């Protein structure tokens, strides 16, 4: 039997489970005596173990199993395990690395001996005194005493399980072996339906205690959760809204998107041909294909939409670790984690956002003593939020720290010519430009966390490459907010094609204000740079021939200029000729070393020729 077929699924699901472990650990750390985090952790660890075992990864399974055993004991007294939280964090990390290691070089090479020894030691050293060594406490205030009437039990079958109804039936039979089952919901007939969602509840009259019941139900396999009491059951509406889903390999979706991209380009060519033709049938077909292609594109884009939590999920852990390392106290909040974004954009956002979070911990939030002195709560707040309107997603990283000291930025801005000499204030947009200069850092001293100014320039160029922008607001003493404004999807944009030398370049229409004829008598100077008189304003000119290093004959006669606009900054891009408008498919772009940092991507034009996509933000 070929297990490699299951490898991809294992990788995705095990990461989900381990990420759930991380989240549960953070919750546990915050509320050391709460039971729910330990139960979640136990559950995720257990599920992970099952998957690792199915893949035949003995070492991973062993570590997960031993961890689970300790957790099992801790479920009755979570507070007793608070000293172990750090160990569990390290185990989660080790498992995560182990998954990657096992898939590359096999499980046999993994060595978890030190962690297993720590687990053993933890168990041994705590057993004599720790009450958690006793699985169930004698007096369980939450649960009714043994034999005291029937209690409600809600069971959830693991979402990935096959035949949830049959699995539920097995669990039910186990329950029946413990006592008498009544008030079964849903009706037994529902268990035979293929779309049974795996949630059911019943009343059980039994002398067995909750641990015994849980163990018995779990023994029927694939049981994700056993809950007691009548706490609000999951609303049926919510369950229904989840709809039916299947997993799809992301590469499939990417391939589909590429095909749709090709289709869009071909559609453009067809429209041109139809336009030039006299045939009404051809025109009709071209229109229809155009419409269907548009719809298809919309559907594929929709399918690629991914909730941001898939990337945000690891941030609580990142912030926690940084805060510990740097001696800060930080409360971390996440908002809008269901906000959707094109997977391709989302995947590239992880690093920039971690940079921003690092900055927030390292340069934003002050040390507890300093905060106290400033009359602020010792615990700082960092919040990441996501929200969307129709076409744009806004992601904000907010801290309530000390803000950026503009007096330190001012001389830098003046020296760089961004502000006139004698300026006394640094507007937010200039501030960002200073921060985004490679190598610039406002850190008072270099730390191994934020490094020397690594970060903002990388963040900004990454976000721009994705077609987005970055804004900063900051106030001394009250904190900073970095706002990332991102398109909800990339992949296909309308662009103006311009020729410079032999090559054609694409300029996204979203960044273009207008096109004009470039009249030599309107060239003036602005702060020592060449500028163009556009009606009553001066716009800096960028001669793309010079920028791109194009040699050869210049076009005779007048040339056009493309006025690009980013925020409130503009530039006149002087090109050789305008070629036309086209929908272009943005291809991921890993600029080869030495490429000018002026391009945000590449595309294939309708006639098959490649073209670079000009990044207006890099030119204004």
């Amino acid at each position, binding site marked *: *039997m070929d*297990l490699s077929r*299951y490898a991809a699924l294992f990788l995705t699901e095990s990461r989900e489970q381990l990420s759930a472990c991380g989240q549960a650990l953070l919750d546990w750390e915050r509320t050391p005596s709460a039971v729910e985090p330990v139960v979640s952790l136990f559950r995720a660890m257990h599920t992970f173990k*099952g998957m690792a*075992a*199915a*893949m*035949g990864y003995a070492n991973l399974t062993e570590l997960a199993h031993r961890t689970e055993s300790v957790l099992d004991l801790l479920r009755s007294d979570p507070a007793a395990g608070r000293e172990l939280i750090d160990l569990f964090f390290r185990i989660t990390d080790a498992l995560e690395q182990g998954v990657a290691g096992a898939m590359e070089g096999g499980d046999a090479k993994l060595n978890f001996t030190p962690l297993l020894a720590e687990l053993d030691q933890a168990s041994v050293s705590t057993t004599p005194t720790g009450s958690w060594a006793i699985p169930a406490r004698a007096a369980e205030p939450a649960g009714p005493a043994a034999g005291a009437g029937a209690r409600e039990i809600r069971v959830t079958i693991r979402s990935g399980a*096959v*035949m949830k*109804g*049959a699995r539920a*039936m*097995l669990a039910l*039979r186990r329950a029946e072996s413990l006592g008498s089952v009544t008030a079964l919901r849903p009706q037994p007939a529902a*268990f*035979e*339906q*293929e779309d*049974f969602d795996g949630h059911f509840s019943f009343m059980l009259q039994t002398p067995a205690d909750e641990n015994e019941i849980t163990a018995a139900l779990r*023994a*029927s*396999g694939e049981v994700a959760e056993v809950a007691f009491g009548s706490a609000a059951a999951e609303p049926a509406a919510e369950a229904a809204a989840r709809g039916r889903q299947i997993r799809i390999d992301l590469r499939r979706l990417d391939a589909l998107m590429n095909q749709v991209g090709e289709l869009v380009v071909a559609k453009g060519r067809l429209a041109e041909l139809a336009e030039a033709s006299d045939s009404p049938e051809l025109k009709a077909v071209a229109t229809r294909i155009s419409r269907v292609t548009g719809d298809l594109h919309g559907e594929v884009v929709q399918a690629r939409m991914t909730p941001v939590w898939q990337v945000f999920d690891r941030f609580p852990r990142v912030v926690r670790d940084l805060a510990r390392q740097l001696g800060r106290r930080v409360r971390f909040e996440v908002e809008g984690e269901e906000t959707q974004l094109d997977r391709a954009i989302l995947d590239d956002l992880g690093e920039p956002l971690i940079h921003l979070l690092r900055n927030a911990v390292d340069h934003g939030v002050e040390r507890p003593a300093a905060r106290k002195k400033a009359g602020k709560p010792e615990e700082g707040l960092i919040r990441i939020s996501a929200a969307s309107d129709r076409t744009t997603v806004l992601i904000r990283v907010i801290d309530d720290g000390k803000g950026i000291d503009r007096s330190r930025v001012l001389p830098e801005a003046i020296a760089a010519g961004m502000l006139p000499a004698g300026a006394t204030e640094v507007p937010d947009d200039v501030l960002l430009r200073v921060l985004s200069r490679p190598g610039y850092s406002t850190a008072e001293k270099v730390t191994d966390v934020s490094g020397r100014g690594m970060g903002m320039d990388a963040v900004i160029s990454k976000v721009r490459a994705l077609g987005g922008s970055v804004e900063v607001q900051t106030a001394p003493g009250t904190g900073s907010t970095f706002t990332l404004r991102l398109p909800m999807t990339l992949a296909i944009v309308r662009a103006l094609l311009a020729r410079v030398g032999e090559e054609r370049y694409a300029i996204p229409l979203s960044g273009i204000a207008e096109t004009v004829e470039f009249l030599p008598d309107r060239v003036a100077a602005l702060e020592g740079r060449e500028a163009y008189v556009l009606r009553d304003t001066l716009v800096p000119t960028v001669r793309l021939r010079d920028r791109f290093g194009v040699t050869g004959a210049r076009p005779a006669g007048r040339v056009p200029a493309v006025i690009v606009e980013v925020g409130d900054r503009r530039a006149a891009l002087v090109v050789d000729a305008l070629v036309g408008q086209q929908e272009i498919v943005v291809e991921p772009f890993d600029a080869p070393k030495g490429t000018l940092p002026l391009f945000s991507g590449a595309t294939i034009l309708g006639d098959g020729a490649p073209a670079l996509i000009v990044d207006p933000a890099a030119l204004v």
Partner: protein
Amino acid sequence: MSHTVLVCDDAIFMRTMISDILAQAGFEVVGEAETGREAVEKYRQLKPDLVTMDIVMPDMGGIEAVREICKDDADARILMCSAMGQQALVVEAIQAGAKDFVVKPFQPSRVLEAVQRVLG
């Protein structure tokens, strides 16, 4: 001492695969049956620790065989082997007394997990 198993399936391919999986895990496959009727007879004769039972078989189906076997031995440990999309039948088999199920295509570890549950 290793557990004894009776493997019931009308397809040789499936019997071979299941037998391989179980044999590799240290079980002793003591018999095979091609029909439900044969399964019932062999169960009486061999008293295996475990039975793997296909649902759809000629001459008495798997569910009927489960019923017959459980009539003699309520503690019989029977693991149903089902294809996707037979949930209603699996539910019926469980009500008839089957102790667990696996779904084709088989993943050996899943099969063995189910077997452990049945025997445990």
